[in-house]
């Protein structure tokens, strides 16, 4: 597909995602519902990875770029954060390491349980 067509298709998929997120009875980020729509289209072979190559390479390589503007927006909240900066940093580090350990342990435990169950 031409690059303009790729963007057109992706934006249509996003519209579909927003549509579904509004129908959803619980709060559903429109990014997630759009992701599900795209995955289903790929799985149904309505789209191929190659046909979206240009737009997917561009977005995946430059993902962080689109978060610069929201990041700069932190300027408006500096006053409020100044006092609690150190605890916030500590919270981020501790919870990241805990999450890491818990996820690894859960994968290992599930795999062990599954092999044990298969052997029976």
């Amino acid at each position: 597909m031409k690059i303009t067509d790729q963007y057109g298709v992706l934006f249509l998929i996003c519209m579909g995602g927003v549509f579904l997120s509004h129908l959803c009875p619980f709060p559903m980020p429109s990014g997630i519902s759009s992701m599900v729509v795209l995955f289903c289209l790929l799985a149904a072979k309505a789209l191929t990875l190659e046909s979206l190559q240009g737009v997917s390479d561009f977005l995946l390589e430059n993902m962080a770029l689109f978060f610069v503007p929201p990041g700069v927006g932190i300027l408006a909240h500096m006053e409020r954060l100044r006092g609690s900066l150190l605890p916030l940093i500590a919270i981020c580090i501790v919870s990241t390491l805990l999450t890491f350990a818990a996820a690894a342990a859960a994968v290992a435990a599930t795999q062990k349980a599954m092999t044990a169950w298969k052997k029976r």
Partner: protein
Amino acid sequence: MNALNALKAALETPFFGIAITVLSFGVGRLIGRRVRSPLANAYVISTVFIIAFLQIADIPLETYALGGDVMSLMLVPATAILATIVYRQRTLLAANLVPMIAGCLVGAATSLASIYFLCRFFGIDETIAVSLLPKSVTNPIAMELSTASGGIASLTVAAVVFTGMVGAVCAPLMLTLLKIKNPVAAGIAIGTSSHVLGTAKAIEIGETQGAASGIAVCLAGMSTVVLYMFL
């Protein structure tokens, strides 16, 4: 005086915000390639530079946001495109579906619970706590969850990026320390705790680790959305 007014008119367009963002990001990427430290990534360099520039040149945030808001339009398509990562790794996903889902769900729950209790322990105010809560998932998802629950989007973004850097720096050490040999467990742990920035590190560690980490970014995001329904 006329020239000053003309300059002001030029700043009061979306072009200014877009140009400074894209160009400082490009410079940041060049520096990041030279320095090769997760702390010197393009995102951090570009964000810090723009904040400093706006402060020094005394340009209001609203002027920058004219262009910034245009760029934020791409957040939903950028999340949607993550589906291609999962689809590309569908054989690995199918072979390890249950352990992967279990790892991401448990990881996401641990992240939410640990942030909640740590915030209470430190007496962090409600708005800030709500902004931190989704910080282990990838930015577009975290931002939407944060704003939907009354958080400050920009604080969430900062916490997400910081978390990613912590994960990327600590991942090799944690793998040795916890004696994790299984590449799927390693990838899921990295992707669940530190999203896309961690995944970049996981790809360096190994192919399976990188692929599993990419899947975990999506699965952990979805798990967190599901867990938010019960909050």
